[in-house]
Every structure is written in structure tokens, then in C-alpha cells.
């Protein structure tokens, strides 16, 4: 057994993992990053439309600040977000954009003078002030009250990932490619690193680390139709779940993106609607204003996706040989705008649909897009249950997004969480607890268990094979644990997933060959993915309310009195077929923004008993501290600055600040 020692082991080479690695490296710790693929091929590269940060440079962003971004994020989350985390995030997001600007991201810039735009279907001219010329501009996105999404055409994630990836090269951070962490080394209280499998030849290694950070992204591939990359199978979350002591939170909170091209499920950015694109039905009717007169196409994703599905169910979908869909119309944006600002969308339409989106409508239907749930951590990214284990980015439930993430907040979360969690990792390594007492027996046992698991699978003579079981799981998830959910369908999903889990323990492989064996890898991952799917289905079944992206036809109201709490799923034993589900309550008495109406979607929530008293208390504090300044009020309502690393606490400068 080969053992590799490092201070910090980061599992996942996307934006979150790389940024956390950089923070720890800059503090002098040795860092190794593991990646399934070359780091720059990570799914972060697929983020198109942009990243939210309240710079407020552009005319349509004027007056934006952390407060507006905070409120939009909490409303977007349907009050599921951790408001302290949301505060930390909105405060650091402008710093993250500016850091990336200094590192080389070619953010699109404000052009002073009249600029053509399309708003609500009409051509308008926006006059950008001369003072803002050359500063970072922003576009409109769903669920936001200001134009806040900073962008690089529609290749934002690509530009960010390349800059951060090359920065990691500059700092000499080792990235071990085509390596998959297959289990965490732990003693039930402290994480000691991970057992890692080299995908090119199947060899196992033990990586022993003082701190381990999981940043492996989401688990969209448990669904049949997903915008996610094929590597987004949630294995990082699954190996945390396998410890039995680390919980996955809010797994039932799964986002469906309104505009995936139909039927391939490839994303076209929310920027299409942000820049003025419209949704139309089979009769060419623009239907969103009928349902959402205020935000129209730019309500939050959960609301738009649900309205689209309802509209299709009501018989207004366009039909094709693959089924029904709706249309995204960006023809009104014009050829020049599309060629400049939406060029990836243009390429995708040309290559996968054979259409020119400047002239033809794009067939779209909502598809799985984002995992709000994941490894439960505290505000500094420390995982529940194991000391020395951290998580950040989509793999984590930090909980910035609650039950619905706003577009542009995830790629922002990757770098912001990376900055904050990376510092927490460095602090941990510098502390006494960061020292590791290594037990070779513990490492050996973890290695041998993983080796036995793979040997058992490779030698398995069972009648089942992985590919059909995987396909069945994906169908169950899309059909019964999708956008619109119901108790009966969820119960049948849980039951059938249990059967699939049992069947997945009786696999027989058809191929056996030295070196990489994709069938063995797929079989091993299937068992992990089934556990994640069961956490999603079981969490959805038990949550008898509707909140954000979790919509229950049989419980259509948001129930703050009964369900203002976060789901925690633990896997009790290796032979279990269901998680143990528990909950942690969100404390309304500590909220800066108590539950209310989101400004779009339904407005019939069942109120929490603490909401009215907290609202009264907030009004009293606001009156009392009227002249005391913004920071004093913030500290009274929800102090958060003390949680941030000292260098990230400063106020964010904006154009027009008093000198």
C-alpha cells in the first residue's frame, strides 16, 4: 500500500476545491488536489451566465448592495438558507469578483453612453454613466431586484476556472488527475484522509492528511435528464454518507433549470431570459406573465420550472417525437447580441439542435440542474460529525441556498466558500487540533476494506448488471422525485429504490481486464448513487410541505410552523436500504429577514409562531438604531463579520461612495 502524506487533501478540482486549495497553500500548507478529470475540465467550466456580486456599477445595478443581495438570496431560498452564511456570502462576493479580475478574468465591462437592451419584450436604451465606464458590468437574472450577475459573455465558469486553475499551477499546487476518493479514513471522530483509486489502472492509495476537504460538486446524474456533466455523480457526498457519522442535509432540495434544450438536457443559460428572452407555448403565446405578473420569465428557477410543467400539463406544450416541450425565444435579442453575449448558446443550438437561435426558437423543458443539498457543514465549512473534514461548493450544504438557489449564486458560492473555507482549513491546520496522530492500523484497515470491496465486485457472479439498474434509478428519480411530487409516487420511489439497492449488491461483471475497467468503476459508483437517490426520495417523502424546489401536490403550502427545519440524513449501516432522517430547526428569532412572501410564487405559507414577535423586534431595533449607522444595526440584527477571516471583513467600495 502506497501512502501519500499532505497537510491538506482537497477532493475535487473544480472552482470550489481549487480556491480552497489556494487559500490553504497561501498560508503555507502543503496541498494536494484530487480530480476525476484534468481540473480545467471540471463542471465549473459549464457555468455560463455569470456570478452574482453587488458591485452596482451598471445603471440597472445602481443602488445595489449587500442588503439587497442578501434579501434576494433568502427569498430565493424560500427561507431555507442559513442567514448568517448568506450574510457572509454577500459580503465576500464583491471581493471574489475583484480578486478574479486582478487575476485575469476578462469580465465584461460597462460601456458608457446609450446601450441597447431588451426588457419585458421591448427594445430600450440604457444610458450608462461615464463614471462607470470600464468597471465590471452585470446582467439581469431571475429572482433579483437589481442587475447583479457579473459575466464573461456566456462562458463565465470557463473563464473563472481557467484563471483559478492556472493560479493553482502558479502556486505549485499538485493536482492528481484521474483519481477518485473511494472512502474516508476515519475513526468515528477524526478524519485522517482518504483511500483513493487511480482510475487509469485501478490501484489504491492512502492519502493521509491533517485536513480533508470534499468539493466534488453535485449529484445530478442520479436523474435521467440533467444539465450536469457526466462526472456529477455525487461520489464525494456518498463517501461522507458512508461514514455513518456525517449527515447529508436537504437532499430533497433539487433544482430544475427552466431552460435545458429538449430532449438532450444541455443547459442554455438563464442569461437568455435575463437579456430579454421570452418563454412561449405551442400557440406562440408568452405565458409567464399570466402566472407571474411581477417577475414574469425572471421569477426564481423553482417557480418558473413549476409554471412551465403546469403549462405543459394544461395542454399547452409543443409536441415533438420525444414528447412535449416549450419554446425559448431569443430572436428578439438580435444576431449581434447573440454572437457576442450568448455565443455558447448559439454554438449549442447549432451543434445539438441544428438551429440558429437568432432566427428560430429553442425547444426547452426543465431538467435537473443543481443540488442544494449535500454534506452538512457549519458556516466555516466544517462537516458535521468528523473533525478535520471540510466541504465546500455544491458538494456541501453550507446552506446558502436553502430550498432554491438563485441563478448566479452557485458559481459565486464556489469561489466565496473556497476563500472562507480555505482559511478555516488553514486555521485548523495551524491549531493544535490540526495535528494528526496517525494510526497505521486504521489506514491499513480502510485500505483493505476498499480493496475487498472492489475485489468482491470484480469477482461478483450475480445476475445483475450495473447499466440497467442505473437507468432504472434515473427514471424513478425523474418521474417520481422530480419537479412535481406526491406522497404516493414518493413512497413507490422509496420502495423501488430499496429493491434496487438490494439488487445492486448482486452484481456480476461481464468484463475483466487489466488496467482501467470502466465497468467495475460504474458498478462501484452505482451503489453509492443509489444511496444518494434514496436520501433524496426519503427526504422528499417525509417533508410534508412545499418549499422552494421541493413541491408536493398533496401538501402545496409552505409550512413554516411545521417544517422550518433542515433535513439531516445519515446512513446507519452498510447493509441498510434507507437513511435515518433527522432534522435541525432554523431559529426564526435569529433571522434578519423573518419568513414572508418571496415577491413571486404562492403566498399562502403557514406562519411560524416566532415570525411576528421577531418582526416586531426587528422593527424596534431599526427604530432604536436609526442614527447609529449600518454596521451597528447589522450587529444588532445578525452579526456575521466576526465569522469571516480578518482580511475579508472590510467594507466593499462602490462607485459614488462618499469620499
Amino acid at each position: 500500500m502506497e501512502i501519500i502524506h499532505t497537510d491538506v487533501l482537497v477532493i475535487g478540482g473544480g472552482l470550489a476545491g481549487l480556491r480552497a486549495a489556494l487559500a490553504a497553500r497561501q498560508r503555507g500548507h502543503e496541498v494536494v488536489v484530487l480530480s476525476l478529470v484534468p481540473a480545467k475540465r471540471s463542471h465549473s467550466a459549464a457555468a455560463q451566465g455569470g456570478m452574482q456580486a453587488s458591485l452596482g456599477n451598471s445603471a440597472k445595478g445602481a443602488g445595489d448592495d449587500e442588503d439587497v443581495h442578501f434579501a434576494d438570496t433568502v427569498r430565493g431560498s424560500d427561507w431555507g438558507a442559513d442567514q448568517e452564511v448568506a450574510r457572509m456570502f454577500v459580503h465576500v462576493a464583491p471581493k471574489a469578483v475583484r480578486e478574479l479580475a486582478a487575476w485575469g478574468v476578462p469580465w465584461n465591462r460597462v460601456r458608457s453612453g446609450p446601450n441597447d437592451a431588451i426588457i419585458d419584450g421591448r427594445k430600450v436604451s440604457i444610458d450608462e454613466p461615464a463614471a462607470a465606464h470600464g468597471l465590471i458590468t452585470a446582467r439581469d437574472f431571475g429572482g433579483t431586484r437589481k442587475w447583479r450577475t457579473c459575466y464573461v459573455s456566456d462562458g463565465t465558469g470557463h473563464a473563472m476556472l481557467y484563471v483559478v486553475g492556472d493560479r493553482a499551477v502558479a502556486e505549485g499546487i499538485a493536482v492528481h488527475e484521474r483519481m477518485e476518493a473511494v472512502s474516508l479514513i476515519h475513526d468515528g471522530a477524526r478524519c485522517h484522509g482518504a483511500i483513493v483509486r487511480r482510475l487509469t489502472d485501478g490501484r489504491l492509495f492512502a492519502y493521509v492528511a491533517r485536513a480533508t476537504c470534499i468539493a466534488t460538486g453535485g449529484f445530478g446524474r442520479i436523474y435521467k435528464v440533467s444539465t450536469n456533466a457526466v462526472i456529477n455523480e455525487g461520489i464525494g457526498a456518498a463517501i461522507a454518507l458512508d461514514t455513518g457519522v456525517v449527515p447529508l442535509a436537504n437532499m430533497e432540495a433539487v433544482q430544475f433549470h427552466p431552460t435545458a434544450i429538449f430532449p438532450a438536457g444541455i443547459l442554455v443559460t438563464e442569461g437568455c431570459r435575463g437579456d430579454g428572452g421570452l418563454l412561449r407555448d405551442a400557440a406562440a403565446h408568452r405565458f409567464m406573465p399570466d402566472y407571474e405578473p411581477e417577475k414574469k420569465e425572471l421569477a426564481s428557477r423553482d417557480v418558473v420550472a413549476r409554471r412551465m410543467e403546469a403549462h405543459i400539463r394544461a395542454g399547452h406544450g409543443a409536441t415533438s417525437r420525444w414528447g412535449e416541450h416549450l419554446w425559448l425565444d431569443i430572436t428578439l435579442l438580435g444576431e449581434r447580441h447573440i454572437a457576442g453575449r450568448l455565443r455558447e448558446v448559439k454554438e449549442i443550438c447549432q451543434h445539438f439542435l441544428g438551429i440558429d437561435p437568432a432566427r428560430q426558437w429553442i425547444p426547452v423543458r426543465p431538467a435537473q440542474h443543481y443540488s442544494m443539498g449535500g454534506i452538512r457543514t457549519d458556516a466555516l465549512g466544517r462537516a458535521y460529525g468528523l473533525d478535520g473534514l471540510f466541504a465546500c461548493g455544491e458538494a456541501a450544504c453550507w446552506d446558502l441556498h436553502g430550498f432554491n438557489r438563485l441563478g448566479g449564486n452557485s458559481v459565486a458560492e464556489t469561489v466565496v466558500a473556497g476563500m472562507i473555507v480555505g482559511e478555516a482549513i488553514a486555521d485548523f491546520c495551524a491549531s493544535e487540533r490540526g495535528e494528526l496522530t496517525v494510526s497505521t492500523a486504521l489506514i491499513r484497515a480502510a485500505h483493505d476494506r476498499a480493496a475487498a470491496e472492489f475485489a468482491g465486485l470484480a469477482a461478483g457472479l450475480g445476475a445483475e448488471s450495473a447499466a440497467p439498474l442505473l437507468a432504472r434509478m434515473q427514471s424513478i428519480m425523474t418521474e417520481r422525485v422530480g419537479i412535481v411530487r406526491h406522497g404516493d409516487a414518493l413512497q413507490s420511489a422509496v420502495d423501488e429504490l430499496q429493491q434496487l439497492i438490494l439488487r445492486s449488491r448482486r452484481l456480476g461483471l461481464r468484463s475483466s481486464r487489466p488496467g482501467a475497467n470502466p465497468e467495475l468503476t460504474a458498478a462501484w459508483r452505482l451503489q453509492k448513487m443509489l444511496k444518494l437517490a434514496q436520501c433524496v426520495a426519503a427526504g422528499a417523502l417525509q417533508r410534508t410541505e412545499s418549499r422552494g424546489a421541493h413541491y408536493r401536490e398533496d401538501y402545496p403550502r409552505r409550512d413554516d410552523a411545521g417544517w422550518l427545519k433542515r433535513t439531516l440524513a445519515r446512513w446507519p449501516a452498510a447493509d441498510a436500504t434507507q437513511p435515518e432522517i433527522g432534522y435541525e430547526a432554523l431559529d426564526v428569532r435569529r433571522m434578519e429577514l423573518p419568513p414572508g412572501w418571496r415577491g413571486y410564487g404562492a403566498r399562502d405559507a403557514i406562519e411560524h409562531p416566532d415570525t411576528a414577535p421577531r418582526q416586531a423586534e426587528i422593527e424596534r431595533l431599526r427604530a432604536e438604531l436609526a442614527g447609529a449607522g449600518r454596521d451597528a444595526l447589522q450587529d444588532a440584527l445578525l452579526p456575521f463579520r466576526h465569522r469571516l477571516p480578518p482580511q475579508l471583513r472590510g467594507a466593499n467600495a462602490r462607485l459614488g461612495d462618499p469620499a
Partner: protein
Amino acid sequence: MIRLFRKAPDSGRPRRLTASVLRHNPADPASAPHWQDFVVEEAEGMTLFIALNEIRATQDPSLQFDFVCRAGICGSCAMLIDGRPGLACRTLTRDLGERFTLAPLPFFELIGDLSVNTGKWLRGTAERLRTWVHAAGRPDLDALEERMAPELAEAIYELDRCIECGCCVAGCGTAQMRPDFIGAIGLNKIARFRLDPRDTRSDEDFYELIGDDDGVFGCMSLLGCHDVCPKQLPLQTQIAFLRRRMAALGF
């Protein structure tokens, strides 16, 4: 160049496609490179991503290939399609004949079948060319960002769109003869950082990196790179421009 779709056949009967795949498993001493045919029934809108996954799921679970985003964004799936470098994920079978060949990208280390190790080569290239903005000190994260002309930001992005898929290197005559040639990937990166005012490096600094036959003077102007680039990067003009700048410095 974006190829236009061929019209679907009118017969209504799906075609039976034969994918001839060049296979080899370097980890297996008994393996020798060989062509293996796989037959799949064509479906509407079928891409090579769909076809290869169907082959692996139903015919040969050991077949190796790399896909990540399957949307033409990540650059993982470059291979030789009928001998020409391209992205498999966005190649529609309807644009191919009933029989076509798939082979791994040349030049890069073979992992197995259609999977090659582009990552190792690209990390080496990034280290060698130091492909990051060189600036002194740490930025002030609280202050307003430095301004940049909107047109310049767009021009930098134009070159920043490279997805490091390796098609250009696979299509490069020089790379076949000079294993250390940095290829259009490397030259385009230098052009990108040269254009970026945030990078303090001078042309003299860049000359040190690319002013030899493994750099910009190795290019024979065959421009296979330009023809096969899936992102239609302006490689021809960038390389020509760089060469003039660097040649002027060399005198």
C-alpha cells in the same frame, strides 16, 4: 466552420451504423492495437456521446473514452473522427457515413482505447509557459476594480475561449516532428497574456518562453490547428502576429 446538418434520410428506417474503433490497452501486455467494429442503430439526434455510451452499456463495458460536459465546453472528448480531430460529444452521427472510424488523439499519451492523457501535457505546458497573469503584490479586494476598456475585455475573452481539447496539437505537422513543440494551444495562451494589460511581462519575457523552434518559430504555417479548432479561435492571425513580433525582437 460549423457544419450544416445533412438532411435525414427519407426512408424512415434508421441506419445501421458501424463504428470502427481503434483499441489498445497499454496496461495489458497481451494487448496490440487493433480495429474493432461496433454496430449501432442510429437514433434521431444521435451524437457520438450517445452512440459510444450505448456501445459501452450494451456491447462492451470495457471500452474506454472520456466525456465530461457532453456539451462542447470542457474539451475532454477530442478524438480522431474519420481521421480528423474533433469533439465527439457534439458530432452528430447524421453528419457521418454509415461506416466511420474513431481513434484516439495522436501526440498525447494513450491511456486506453479512445482515452488520452491531455491533462499531463497541459499541466506541463502551463508550467513551462507560466500561463497566468504576472502582477506584483496582492490585489486590494475592498477597492474598486481596475478599469478596462470593454472592447479589450472582449478581445481577451476571444482568446480565452480555448478549451484545451488538444485538437490543434493533434492536427499540427510540427508537433508530429517535435515532441516539445508548444502547439497552437501554447501560442494562443501567450497571445492572450500578451494582450492583457494586467500581465506585466514584456515581449522580451515572452521571447524567452517561445522564441525558438519549440515555440513560435517551429510553426510551419500548415495551419491544421486553425482548421480543426472547435472554438474557431483566430489561431492563424494570432500565430502570424506573434511570429512577427518575436522575429522583430530577435534581430
